[in-house]
């Protein structure tokens, strides 16, 4: 073991963002390692941070950015811009001069190209993918010895390498540490530049490298040490010298105009030909504070401020507490919940809340007697509790297992017939006719096909069962989870029926289906967590423990779980067998209300969904079963803000499904403990999602996954675009755009909180993650003490009054 070298590898890999597999797609900020530095310095090869100048100018054309936005943006970014100038007898403000300069000065921000070593990258990608091959038909030999060893043994037989190289490979050290050390010496890397060299090598194939980092921590079958050993050994053996560590700087299309040129242009356009030299000098002094290199971020800021101002403006003053509602609905903070909540609130006696979609119950969940489990909890947590189901009807359970076994036998029999060497030929001849028929059904009548399939193979979810909360958690843990949820949401009274609705997305033939599921549940549907939470709240022992803690749940309050299908917008009640006789009517009322709400929401969504029409909402629902559909739903596209505060702030306001909503009542959380939890967990998850969309939209080729239509899956690990190459990261183009137009507006998350500014400030100051995000402008924070107070904006130097609401569309 070479400990120092291992440490150097770990140091080189420090900034690599782990890349989750497709089956549990976790939205991450692909530039997370830059969060400790200001946003605008996060430049990475192959990546742009803002849109193009033309795009912003087009926004000016259509009123999406108005002068006031630019002025506000300049005021935030260049606070020293103040005062007035006289140009040719006319007076102009310094800010106005800078705005004019922004509109007239052109810039381009070509990204440096991402590093690539075509042959070596393809070679490594082929080896890594073959080594990690999930469900292989022929597993790579020697994988149990690790990646480097497997490669070393097989490379001796690799006909694509020259004989001399194969002979050298046979004599390589057996251990990856030793091989890497040997290769570094052979390549002439000085001891002090080892870490830097390794870091440079990890910039190639970022998709695979991120996946390896994830696997090293979560599965452990490969690590970056063995990857680097192979990579550098190949370099050494083939005599491929290391590339220079600094990527080639981007070449701008045209040299930016000089300061004098800009100043003259601006001065003339204001003062005409009568401006004199001194006036131009004054303009130069003004424009020098805002160099062309800063323009892009100022444009982006203006673009965001326009939205923020309108959003802040739309927030209402809080009404006093209402009488006891008939129905309460708790949904995930996910922006898609906002739509269904808004439409359900047409019922005046209904009250809705936003809470993290795992309902504060972090579990590893498996269905009744299932062979696998999912981590249904935020990626910020490690699973410690296993939750499963216990069927209520043993006869049905037996039948269920029987069906499962038959299905398994069928799967296994087709799999074996298809995956042998001698059997696929006749298999294709026999089953081809059946497949053809299925193809026709799936393409022409997807809904009918889904119905037939559901009839033949009913889903596991239909087995009536209870979740095993008492086995998974102690009574004290359950009471603590219930208390936390109540305090975080600020619930003071409980309705007779409380619906806890998780969410999931139903689509077929969609490798990115997990990206549409609940982010707080690790990219899984949130139904199981909702069921667990409802069971906890209904538990009399838990309720008894809550009373001394000041939370009194009336005995006529019944909690029930539900799942919101974000494609069809149906909110289906789960565990219906648990509903007591007394609450059957209330459940029926809820069913009717959610159907009405879903109908309204589908029409609303159909306006944005490519190829859909508000006149046929049924077609929108049909996308859940359509194998040809690449836009089953728009997911979290459009997400731009997060509001932490009571629902009264936004009830009745159409937020266009763009805002994460977390319920919170500052009056009930005097110590700020609940707020700290909200700001360090749901807020962080929302920020990950927001930046995932932001960078996937701006960099579809490097940080996004590109178009779905050429995706080629490697099991459930990830996708390639085409037959070879790097694993694609981020979201596919179909999540953010249509044709060559973006429908996701890339904006950094605007956070709005209604809570005492002091307590917010305290929380920020003791959490490095929040300091990083806020001080470095990765997200922004606007807050007010209470409904009567004015809005303030967080800055690293303290709170300042937020700019007044702006006009414009």
């Amino acid at each position, binding site marked *: 073991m070479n400990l120092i070298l291992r440490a150097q590898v770990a140091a080189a890999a420090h900034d690599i963002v782990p890349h989750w597999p497709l089956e549990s797609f976790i939205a991450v900020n692909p530039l997370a390692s830059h969060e400790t530095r200001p946003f605008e310095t996060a430049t990475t090869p192959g990546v742009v941070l803002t849109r193009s100048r033309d795009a912003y100018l087009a926004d000016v054309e259509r009123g999406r950015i108005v002068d006031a936005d630019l002025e506000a943006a300049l005021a935030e970014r260049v606070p020293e811009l103040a005062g007035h100038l006289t140009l040719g007898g006319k007076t102009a403000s310094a800010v106005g001069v800078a705005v004019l300069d922004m509109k007239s000065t052109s810039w381009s921000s070509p990204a440096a190209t991402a590093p690539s070593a075509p042959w070596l990258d393809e070679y490594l990608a082929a080896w890594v993918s073959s080594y990690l091959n999930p469900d292989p038909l*022929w597993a790579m030999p020697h994988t149990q010895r690790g990646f480097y060893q497997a490669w070393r043994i097989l490379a001796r037989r690799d006909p*694509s390498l020259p004989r001399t190289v194969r002979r050298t490979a046979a004599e390589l050290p057996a251990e990856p540490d030793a091989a890497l050390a040997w290769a570094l010496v052979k390549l002439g890397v000085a001891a002090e530049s080892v870490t830097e060299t390794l870091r440079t090598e990890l910039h190639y194939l970022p998709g695979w490298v991120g996946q390896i980092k994830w696997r090293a921590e979560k599965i452990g079958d490969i690590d970056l040490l063995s990857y680097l050993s192979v990579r550098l050994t190949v370099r050494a053996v083939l005599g491929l010298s290391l590339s220079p560590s600094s990527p080639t700087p981007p070449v701008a299309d045209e040299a930016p105009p000089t300061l004098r040129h800009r100043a003259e242009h601006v001065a003339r356009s204001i003062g005409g030909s009568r401006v004199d030299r001194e006036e131009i000098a004054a303009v130069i002094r003004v424009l020098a504070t805002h160099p062309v290199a800063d323009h892009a971020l100022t444009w982006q800021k203006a673009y965001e401020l326009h939205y923020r101002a309108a959003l802040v403006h739309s927030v209402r003053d809080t009404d006093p507490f209402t009488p006891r509602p008939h129905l309460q609905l708790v949904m995930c903070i996910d922006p898609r919940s906002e739509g269904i909540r808004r439409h359900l609130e047409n019922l005046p006696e209904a009250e809705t809340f936003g809470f993290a979609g795992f309902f504060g119950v972090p579990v590893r969940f498996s269905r009744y007697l*299932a062979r696998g489990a999912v981590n249904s909890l935020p990626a910020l947590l490690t699973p410690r509790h296993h939750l499963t189901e216990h069927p209520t009807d043993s006869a049905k359970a037996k039948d269920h297992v029987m069906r499962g076994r038959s299905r*398994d036998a069928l799967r296994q029999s087709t799999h074996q017939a298809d995956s042998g060497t001698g059997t696929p030929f006749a298999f294709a001849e026999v089953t081809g006719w059946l497949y053809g028929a299925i193809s026709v059904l799936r393409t022409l009548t997807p809904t009918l096909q889904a119905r037939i399939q559901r009839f033949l193979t009913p889903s596991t979810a239909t087995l009536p069962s209870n979740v095993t909360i008492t086995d998974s958690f102690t009574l004290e843990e359950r009471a603590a989870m219930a208390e936390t949820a109540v305090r975080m949401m600020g619930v003071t009274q409980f309705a007779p029926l409380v619906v806890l609705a998780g969410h999931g997305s139903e689509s077929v033939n969609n490798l990115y289906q997990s990206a549409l599921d609940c982010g707080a549940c690790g990219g899984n549907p949130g139904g199981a967590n909702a069921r667990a939470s409802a069971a906890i709240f209904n538990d009399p022992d838990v309720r008894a423990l809550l009373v001394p803690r000041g939370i009194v749940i009336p005995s006529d309050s019944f909690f029930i779980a539900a799942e919101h299908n974000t494609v069809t917008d149906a909110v289906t009640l789960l565990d219906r067998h648990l509903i007591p006789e007394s609450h059957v009517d209330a459940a029926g009322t809820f069913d009717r209300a959610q159907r009405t709400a879903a109908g309204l929401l589908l029409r609303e969504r159909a306006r944005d969904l490519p190829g859909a029409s508000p006149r046929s909402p049924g077609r929108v629902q049909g996308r859940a079963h*359509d194998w040809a*559909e690449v836009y089953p739903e728009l997911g979290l596209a459009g997400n731009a803000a997060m509001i932490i505060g009571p629902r009264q702030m936004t009830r009745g306001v159409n937020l266009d499904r763009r805002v994460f909503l977390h319920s919170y009542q500052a009056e009930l959380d005097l110590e700020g403990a609940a707020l700290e939890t909200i700001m360090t967990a749901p807020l962080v998850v929302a920020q990950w999602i927001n930046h995932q969309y932001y960078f996937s939209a701006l960099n579809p080729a490097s940080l996004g996954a590109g178009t779905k239509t050429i995706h080629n899956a490697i099991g459930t690990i990830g996708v390639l675009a085409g037959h*070879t190459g790097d694993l694609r990261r981020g979201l596919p183009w179909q999540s953010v755009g249509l044709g060559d137009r973006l429908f996701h507006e890339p904006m950094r998350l605007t956070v709005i909180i209604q809570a005492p500014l002091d307590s917010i400030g305290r929380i920020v100051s003791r959490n490095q993650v929040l300091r990083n995000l806020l001080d470095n402008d990765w997200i922004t924070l606007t807050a007010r003490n209470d409904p009567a107070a004015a809005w303030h904006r967080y800055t690293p130097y303290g709170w300042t009054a937020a700019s007044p609401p702006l006009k414009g569309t």
Partner: protein
Amino acid sequence: MLDWLVVGGVTLTPWIAGFCAAIFARSGMSGDTAARLAATVVGFGFAGTVTVAIASAAGVHRTTWVVFGSTSVQLDALALILSMLVLGLSALIQVFAIRYLRGDRRQVWFVVSANLLTGFTVLMVCAGSVALFAVAWVGAGVALVLLLATYRPLAQARDGIRRTGIRFVIADTVFLIPVLILLVAAGGDVPWARLGSVTDSLPLPLTLTCAALLVVPALARSSQIPFHGWLPFTLAAPTPVSALMHAGVVNAGAILLIRFAPAIAPHQAVMIGVFLAGAATLVYASAVRLVRPDVKGRLVYSTMAQMGFMILACGLGAYAAAIFHLVAHSLFKSTLFLGAGMGVRQHAVDRDLPPRPTRSPFAVPVAVSLSVLVALAALTAAKWMFSPTVSAASAGLLAFVALTAAVALGAALRTTFTLRTFLTGTASIGVLAFGYVALLHVFTAALEPATTVAAPAWLLVVPVIGLVLVQLLSRNPNRFETLRDVVYARTMAPALPRLSALPRSSATSGVPS
């Protein structure tokens, strides 16, 4: 007049569809509308073809001909079966692509070139004479390359176009030589019926050369060794392109071999060559498929192996079996390609299945013997019922079916050893075996077999040994280690980049310390 209408109805719809799509797109209509229109038109073409096929099968209308001089378009059984297949799949895939390529900037390009390809392919299968076939063949090749250019801006797509283009240009140039010889010898176009006599009129060395050269384009189009280096590099095109290609283009090799059978089949040496090329590809591609980690890569090599099987069947003179395989495989593979994104959901569904119970030690041998018995019994019974007389070649091919049935039932029983599984499995195998043999019988009756001097059936031993070897090596982790490593490294090699692609390769051979 009716003949003209019928032939036009079968062959012209893709042309109309492509033409309209191009015109509409130029006149500013949305790609979506153009795609919808084209798919509908081709769908009508498919419906028309089905009607014609039913009419001719019912004897209302015998083979339809349209003749221009010695060139002709004919709708015989083969032409009708394949036209139905190509038009049906093309329409289906185009309907799929309406949604799949929604908003895509290259949608219209896809629609136009897909219809061009469909048009040429239908023309090819309906061609009644050599010259027309040759024109349609080359046209289909060009259309395929255009289709691959759907995402031309991608480097991988350009690489695929280059590889495909080079192989097609070479193979199709080779194709034109025997075609020209035949045309010159006949002094005009040669209808299929006269092909045998025209060939016979040539001196033997020339006929042998013609036969050998005619095989080349067939192998290239079906991605057979030694022209296999293009198909795996065509994945940078949208999924519907792959589906169309794997369902309607790569199988053209068999069509050429069958249409030119009078010129090729009399030469046993050439037929053995065809057989061996198919057999070699079958073994090679089967092995490579096993090591590929990517879902579409597996499908590509699976297609190559299946095409190897089809070409091999042609080499054996089992043309009806080859066409049967062609049709079934087209349906099979297009479905798998279109559904190439199902993996994640499938994984989620499998996760919820119950764990497998521990098996009793008797289960495996009982399962194996039961499944072998059932499979053999079902097939023998079906065979005896429909076609008692059987050639050695088709008996050999039927052995593959028996093996598959046995493996499928055995796997099911090994997974869940219950009476229910056994009965369901046996019943399904019975139904499938009878259905299969009956359908095969229909195909054989429809496509009257040409009497040929084919490759001897015992040659089937060659690919079988190869397949058994690959199977043994891939399933035995602890035996034949060196041989296994060698074979594994060789089958992995197609995925590795060529070292010649390196900018500077200076191999060093320093011994590490």
